[in-house]
Structures are given as C-alpha cells and as structure tokens.
C-alpha cells in the first residue's frame, strides 16, 4: 500500500514537468493550435511540407522553446542545489546563495552593465563573480585543512555582506537614467530576454552540476549527520563537501547569470519535496528537481501572460510561492505530516 503510494508519487513527478512544458507552448500572445505545434515539432525529424507561416516556427523554436527549457532547467537547478545545501549544512533554512553566490553574481552583473557590456558580457561577469564569491567563502572557512560547516556559513555571510555593499556602491555610482534601472531590473530576475544562445551557454553547466549532485545524493544523508559522524562512517567529508559546493555553485551561478536573481525557490521547493517523499536525499533530490522545474515554469508562464507587460520573476516566485508555502506549513504542521 505504502509502496504503491510511493510509485504513484514518482510517476506524477515524472509526468508533471513534461505536461506543463507541453502546455506552456500554447501560452502567449501569439496563438498556436495544438495540431500546428505537433506538425512543426515533427517537421524537425520527419519530412513534412510546411503549411504554416514562418512566424509560427520562429515563435516556437526561438522564443517559447528556449524559454521553457531554461525555466525548467533553472527551477530544477536551484531546487536541487537548495536540497543539497540544506542537507550539507544540516539546516532546512539554507538556500543556494548561502555562500554568497547570488551577491557575487549581482555585483558582477552590475559591473558588466556599468561597463556597458552586451548581455553576454553581463552574463559572463555575473558567472565569474558568483563563483569568485563562493571561492572566497570557501577559502576563508578553511581551518586546519578542514572546512567546518559553521565556518562556511559565517564566511558566506561575510562574503555576502561584502558583495552586497559593493553592489550598493555600483548602484550609487550608476547613471540613474539608464544603467541604474538596468541593474535593478536584472536583480529582479526575468526570462524575458532569453534566446537560443542562452540555452547553449547556460544549460550544459547546469545539467552537469545537477548530475554531479544527483550522483552523490545518498551520501548527503550521511553528511547531514555532521562531520564527525560522517568521517567515522568512512566518508571523506572534505571531498564530498567540495563536490557539493562545486555542483551547487556551477548550477546557481549559471542560473543567476542568465536570468538574474530568483530567490525563494531553492529554499522552499525542497520542503515541498520532503512533504511528498520524505527526508532521504536519495529521493528528495530527484523530487526537488521535478517540483522546482514545474514551479518555475508555472511562475514564468504567469510572468509572461498575466498582464501585457512582463512581471519580474523574483516578485512572482515570492508572491505566489509564499502563501502556498504558508498553506502547506499550516496543513502539515511544520513538515511533520
């Protein structure tokens, strides 16, 4: 009985993001009929004579497909990173930016915008500074050739504070007519300006990072018992922590660099995952992947269809997500169903 319930949840978690992705193709100002969509998609693999306008193809392949793919990928990545970090830090209040990656990326993007770089340059700066921030946190926390968890958290706070201050400085000196709004909009997060190229630059590192985290996911259980116990159980905690940190950082920095800062997902989705499949990271990471992908896709669908203008994602993830999470918390009394 219990086993069947598990199977049902697993099946639903596989179907959910796929179904939502299919539906998302039809959302938007340009209407596309389901039959046309199928024909256009099939035309890529089978010789079908096009009987549709070119615009349809452009909308599907250059606008909606990249956006759907990246929304799935970023949602999944932030959630998997959140789940992995919560386990590693033995703290369900941790989010993927605990080591300062978003603060660093935000500052990097601001620098890119200030220097007048194009979107690729901004993306590059965000990525590099995001990783730099984490490297700095990691270096500061090394004591006696180990990295105690508490030291990591504290140095993450220090590094986050430094980069937040630098970001404020960048905003302060930015030209208030053009560059300041650009920085502010970037920080609110959006997938509106996504192109095919972004999928090619950001998706592979995110997939690789997620794959790395998924491969060590069972061992995150042991890491969550604390350093001493993990080492007593034969785990090389420094190696495993380094793998988790690198995986989470590659995923989060890549995500943030293409879409700006999207908070909240990495903190909350793992909790929803725990309510569904329990705390075992072997099940929790795949569940978070599916739930996070679905969640950000729905949010992004809302962002582009709710009103005629785009709504920044950072706003929606919290406005839609927070009440939902509050409702779940009330119903399950803090995750103890």
């Amino acid at each position, binding site marked *: 009985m219990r086993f069947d319930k598990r199977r049902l949840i697993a099946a639903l978690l596989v179907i959910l993001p796929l179904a939502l992705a299919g539906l998302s193709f039809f959302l938007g100002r340009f209407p596309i009929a389901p039959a046309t969509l199928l024909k256009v998609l099939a035309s890529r693999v089978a010789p079908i004579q096009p009987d549709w306008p070119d615009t349809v193809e452009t909308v599907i392949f250059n606008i909606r497909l990249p956006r759907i793919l990246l929304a799935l990928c970023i949602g999944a990545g932030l959630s998997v990173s959140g789940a992995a970090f919560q*386990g590693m830090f*033995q*703290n*369900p209040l941790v989010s993927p930016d605990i080591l300062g990656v978003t603060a660093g990326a935000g500052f990097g993007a601001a620098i890119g915008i200030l220097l007048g770089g194009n979107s690729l340059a901004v993306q590059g700066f965000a990525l590099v500074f995001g990783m730099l921030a984490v490297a700095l946190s990691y270096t500061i926390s090394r004591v006696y050739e180990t990295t105690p968890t508490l030291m990591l958290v504290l140095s993450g706070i220090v590094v986050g504070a430094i980069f937040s201050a630098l970001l404020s400085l960048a905003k302060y000196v930015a030209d208030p007519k053009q560059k300041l709004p650009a920085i502010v909009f970037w920080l609110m997060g959006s997938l509106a300006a996504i192109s095919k190229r972004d999928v090619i630059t950001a998706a592979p590192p995110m997939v690789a990072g997620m794959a790395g985290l998924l*491969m*060590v*996911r*069972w*061992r995150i*259980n*042991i890491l*969550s*018992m604390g350093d*001493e*116990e993990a*080492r*007593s*159980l*034969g*785990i*090389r905690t420094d190696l495993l922590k380094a793998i988790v940190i690198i995986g989470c950082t590659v995923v989060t920095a890549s995500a943030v660099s293409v879409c700006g800062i999207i908070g909240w997902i990495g903190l909350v989705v793992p909790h929803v995952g*725990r309510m569904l499949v*329990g*705390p*075992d990271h*072997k099940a929790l990471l795949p569940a978070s992947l599916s739930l996070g992908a679905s969640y950000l896709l729905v949010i992004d669908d809302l962002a582009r269809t709710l009103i005629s203008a785009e709504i920044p994602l950072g706003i929606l993830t919290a406005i839609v997500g927070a009440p939902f999470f509050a409702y779940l918390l009330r119903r399950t009394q803090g995750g*103890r169903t």
Partner: protein
Amino acid sequence: MEPRIRLRGGAFSYRDRPIFCGLDLDLFEGDVTCLLGPNGCGKTTLLRCLNAILALREGELWLNGQRANTLSETERARMMGFVFQEHTIQFPYSVLDIVLMGRAPHLSFLASPSKRDREIAERALETVGVAHLQDQRYTEISGGERQLALIARALAQEPQILLLDEPTSHLDFGNQMLILETIHRLVREERIAVIMATHFPNHALLVSTRVLLMKDGGFIAEGVPQDVITGSHLKALYGVDVEVVVVGNNRGGRDRVIVPLMDRQLAV
C-alpha cells in the same frame, strides 16, 4: 593473538591544551574495556583518536595489526564502528535510513545501498532487538531506541571493533540494562571487541573484562574490574566515598556493587 587495537605513547592536545599523553592500550577480541573517569578527563577525545576522527599528536596506533595512518577512511570504517551519544538530528530520517548509513564504507563512492545492504541493515536492527522500528522516524523514537539504532548502524559497518561513547547516559534504568545486555551479547556472539566510555562504575562491573581508569589525561590504573574498581581508586577518580558491597547474583555467583556514600549533612 594480534590485538584489534594497539596504542603506544598516544598523546593529543587542542592547540596548547594537552588532553592526554603517554597512553598505552591493547584491545583483543572478546574484550569489553571500560573507560572510567571524571568529566573532562579525555575519555571522549581518546575514543575519537582511536577512531581517527581526530589525529593523534604523538604516538602510534595499529588497527588489526596495520598502522592506522596507512588505512583509508573506508578501510578504517570497515574495521571499526563508533557509537556516538544519541542526539537529535535535523531531518526526520527513518530508522532504516539511519542504519543504512553504516553501509557507506562498503559502497563505492557513487553507489547507494542495494537490496543486500538493506538486508544487512535490517539484520543489524534485529540483532539489537529493534527490527520493529525500522520504518519509524528516528526523531520520534525514545532515547534508548535511538541509542540502539546507532549501535545497529555501527553493526551495519560489519566491524571487528566497536567504540561506544557513554552509551548508557541519559537512559532510564531499564534501557541502561538493555544496552549493557546488548553489548555483552555482541561481544560473545559477533566476536566484536568493545571499548566503552562510561560514568557508571557498576556498569563496568557488570559487563567489562578490563577497566581503564583515566584522570588528568593519563591512566591511573588498569586491569580486571574486581582489582581496579576499588574504594580508594574511585575516591581518587571522583572524590567520592564509596562502599564496595558483594551480593549474590541471579547466576548463583557473587557480584560486586558500588554504593556511593552521601554526605548527609549536605543533603538535609
């Protein structure tokens, strides 16, 4: 017979604060060695050094005849299980999930537990008598049950050596006896060598084959419990006056029991 653990001249310090030095220790198969000593005397630190969670500052440690610093983490974890003091954890893992963690040293880095590992974990739970708890949440069982689950996790490592850090602290009277009986049975049936730190001289008298008295970072006495657990030694260790009483036990023999003498004037 080759000792399971051999320590020669072991010393450890936290920065400039010496915890213990010049310790020699041998542990053989079938031994239950009890480590007695006041709070802060270095018992727990010594156990951690034996488990190589902490590195000795000086001295040599051999496990099953191999020098400990030549062993990898996994090799060491297959020889030796450490039973930590039961504690609360952040995530409500099931008891079986907790015990399965003991299989880590037998799995390759990217693997997760197989059906066989699951069977070994279930058997470990059976061995300590709490198989019925396997699907319960570790956070919702009693302290005694948690301690038994942690012993089961150490057994899932299939070790030849078991280190226990005050396994009977915080437990009620019944659970204390349950843990002691479990340890006694493991040593006889699973041929495991045990070192346990304890605060209860009576527990040492009940289960140990050997006792080490530790004070101020050194052993002040060692030997069989009848010889070592004496009034004068306990006075030296804890500053407490005791009466050693000999009573008949349920096997027709005689046991020694420590009765502390309280200063009645203070206790008014």
